């Protein structure tokens, strides 16, 4: 029989992790999931797939990706700063 002490489900945080730390990481994870979704079907074709308008000279379809790169960068900076105190 499996060891009854071993949890069956996922253990996302080590025991004793402060709630604020958990909350921030979960918020970041949600941003990451939304970003990933924005890069593929169906969100990318719905909102980001067109050639025009040009943004800073780049086609909308490319500017869309650069925008999400900026989102991930911003979110990572926020998470890092909040954890690096």
């Amino acid at each position, binding site marked *: 029989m499996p060891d009854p002490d071993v949890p069956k489900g*996922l253990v996302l945080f*080590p025991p004793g992790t402060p709630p604020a730390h958990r909350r921030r990481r979960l918020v970041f994870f949600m941003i990451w999931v939304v970003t990933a979704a924005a890069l593929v079907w169906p969100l*990318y074709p719905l909102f980001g797939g067109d*050639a025009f308008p040009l943004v800073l*000279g780049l*086609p909308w379809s490319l500017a869309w*990706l*650069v925008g999400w790169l900026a989102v991930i960068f911003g979110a990572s900076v926020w998470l*890092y700063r909040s954890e690096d105190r």
Partner: protein
Amino acid sequence: MDTWLTTVLICGAYLLVTLLMGVLPGRRVTSSVAGYVAADRTMNVVVLYFVLGASVFSSFAFLGGPGWAYSRGAAAFYILAYGVVGMVPLYFLGPRVRRLGARFGFVTQAELLAHRYGSRALSAVLAVLSVVVFIPYLTLQMKGAGYILEVISGDRIPAWAGALAAYGVVLVYVWTSGVLGVGWTNTFQGLFMLVIAWFLGLYLPHTLYGGVGAMFEQLAAAGHEAMLRAPGLDAAGQPWSWGGFSSAVVVSALGLSMWPHLFMKSYAARSERDLRLTIVLYPTFQLFLVPILLIGFAGILAFPGVAPADTIVPFLLTQIDLSPVLVGLVCAGTLAASMSTGDAILHAAASIGVRDGVRPFLTRAPDDHTERRWIRGLVLGIGAVAYYFAVASDVSIVALLLGSYGGVAQIFPLMVAAFYWPRATGAGALAGLVAGIGVNTLFLLAPAWRPLPLHEGVYGLAANVAVLVLVSLATRPAPPETLAAYTGRLEPAPVAPGEARS
């Protein structure tokens, strides 16, 4: 002086600087395996940033990326898209990996998984997988280096000699300095690549069309608007399917952080803080794909019909009126892209071959010096094999390399389960990995059998996760003390950074 000679001399100067930067740091690490493979765990943010960036972007980014943009338009955006989210998992996994490495003396990816799952077979499978995907990867880098030198010298330097010169340099500094040679040269090469890419990517649209926006407006006006709409065109010039684009992004994003030569740099970090900050800053490197893609777009109207499309960069260089010094610098930038990836792969392949393929199966572990000697020997061996394929064989390796992303992505479920699912077992991990690689390879070789036209890695991942879960639930979990190290709160080891551990 002849134009070609100026160009070649600049490339030669670049190679010389790289050689010096690679050989000198070898004196700064201990002569242990931890020194050779993980730099005694002392890499700071600056070096890590460039190692990560320059290792990801290879001669494929410099030659293939513009080639894709030139022939398939927005399809090339996929290489930008997967990098947006692909490095993030390492923010969460990396610090834990580093801590475990310092505690248990790991220097490779497979050592960690073999320990967590209590499975030597897993270590062997991962060693074989790594070497199988690394050799074509390295071969491609060598071909890129030989090719660029051949073109810019006007066929005076044959590809075999160019590849030999560039990779002779790589071999010397990887042999001498191990990962620290990779680190220092990548810092130089990475910086070089960034400057060259931004310069060329902004200069070409400006000089050929009067600006980046003007270039895209003229492209659309000339009837190329379909190339600017995501997801661009497929290899045959027809609109690419969203399923194909999306699944390629997903598989590559999951695979990116799992590439063994990138993943194992977690061990080399000086601290968890340095490692996290490196991952945070990574998008600033990733952004240089934008000018890289602009280079390809710049060729479409000005120079139609260049084939194969991968040759668009050297073609542009020989066609536009650029000073020979600048052409030389751009060529050196392309060499930098090739070598900064090739060195990391060569180093990782040899380290993994010995640490994961040989060491666990010996009855008596070799001493540190013997092991380092073996790794160096394998550096030579793998370099020679890749060089043979690069100059003497016509096997289509591009397809092999593109296919290998699906294989590498199969490590992802095992890695996530190692840290977040205590119930995952050794039997489950091994069965999941083998099933994933098997299904991936099957659909790679027989694309017509795919139920939907998605990337083969998606099917591999589905099989992988299903088998991992089912077999794990049917077998005994790892001992609690092992699990505690992976899912519990493991305090940082009390040893100062830089101190070698056995």
